[in-house]
């Protein structure tokens, strides 16, 4: 984000040891000087979002004033991006980041395919997610791709967990994993590893908090990644 001064409307310089007429003239001259110096200067960088360190690609980025602060709006390169309502969000911290859950799921799907099998040749691909407060409910589809020697199948699992900010990271701590609640399995007849797969989901969750996004914390000036300021 860059800032470019556009206009200096008035300058008050109390304390100049000059007669009234000259002091007013000095203020006018200094205002003109300040405007020339500030407006003619190259835009200054005030917040740097490093492309290479962002967890997602951005297709759009713009800045808008918001009350007395600023709002940075971005469009990720998720295959099917959701939306975040453009409205002032009350928050007590220096900054707040809102991410569409739909976009997060699609970005997670891309990451899951890029990551490859988590164990036993099984891919774990997020299909859907909902948030209620800090409670996360997600559907993860376990895929057994062709060529693994045990047939092709997929099965959906419901995963519940919590979302929390810890050590400047947004982290998901999955809890339970279960098939049911109207979830679907396909290729069930050739699903001899279903029990193992369910165990894998639990291992996937219990192996520690899984980072899904990093937002830094406190003042953006102190954030490590992906938000940096200069």
């Amino acid at each position, binding site marked *: 984000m*860059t*800032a470019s*001064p*556009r*206009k*200096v*409307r*008035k*300058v*008050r310089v*109390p304390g100049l040891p*000059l007669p009234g007429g000259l002091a007013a003239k000095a203020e006018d001259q*200094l205002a003109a000087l*300040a405007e020339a*110096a*500030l407006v003619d*200067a190259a*835009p*200054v960088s*005030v*917040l740097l979002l490093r492309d290479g360190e962002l967890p997602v690609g951005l*297709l759009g980025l*713009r*800045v808008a*004033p918001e*009350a*007395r*602060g*600023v*709002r*940075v*709006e*971005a*469009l*990720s390169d998720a*295959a099917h991006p959701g*939306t*975040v309502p453009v409205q*002032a*969000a009350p*928050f007590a911290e*220096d*900054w707040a*980041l809102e991410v569409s859950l739909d*976009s997060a799921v699609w970005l997670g799907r891309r990451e*899951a*395919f890029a990551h490859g099998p988590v164990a036993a040749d099984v891919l774990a691909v997020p299909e859907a997610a909902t948030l209620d407060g800090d409670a996360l409910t997600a559907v993860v589809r376990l*895929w057994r791709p*062709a*060529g693994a*020697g*045990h047939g092709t199948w997929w099965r959906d699992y419901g995963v519940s967990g919590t979302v929390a900010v810890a050590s400047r990271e947004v982290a998901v701590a999955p809890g339970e994993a279960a098939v049911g609640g109207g979830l679907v399995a396909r*290729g069930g007849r*050739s699903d001899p590893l279903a029990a193992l797969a369910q165990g894998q989901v639990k291992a996937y969750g219990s192996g520690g908090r899984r980072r899904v996004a990093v937002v830094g914390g406190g*003042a*953006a*000036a102190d954030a490590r990644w992906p*938000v940096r*300021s*200069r």
Partner: protein
Amino acid sequence: MLLLTLLACTCRDDPALTAELAAARAEAEAVPAAPRGDGWSPDVVLHLSAQLTDRLLTRGLGDLPPIEQEVVLGRGVVLKPHLAVTRLTVDGPGAGPTCVVGTAAIGGTVDVDASVLTGAVPVEATATVEVALA
């Protein structure tokens, strides 16, 4: 024999499922074309508080070159300022869609060269500044 038949069934790859997986992967990996113009809705929004915005702008504008051009006022009075933006407080949106208006504190010294006074005078000036963000 029955066991062998069952194993053959369970271990067989299903072409339809393989195609379904390939389609799911292709869909997830697809990157939409970048939108033209501003007719897009954000899926990520970063809100910066007033206090943080003030700090970021203060730091950014503080890096600008100092204001040092000589001013000739007449009657033998010449001013040589050494001023820089020391603080910017955003007051609200500006005239443009990406503009904010703020009050800048400009500090430093002004060398005054006049018949009755010569020397550096500390100055704390304030200015109303409109800043365009991009």
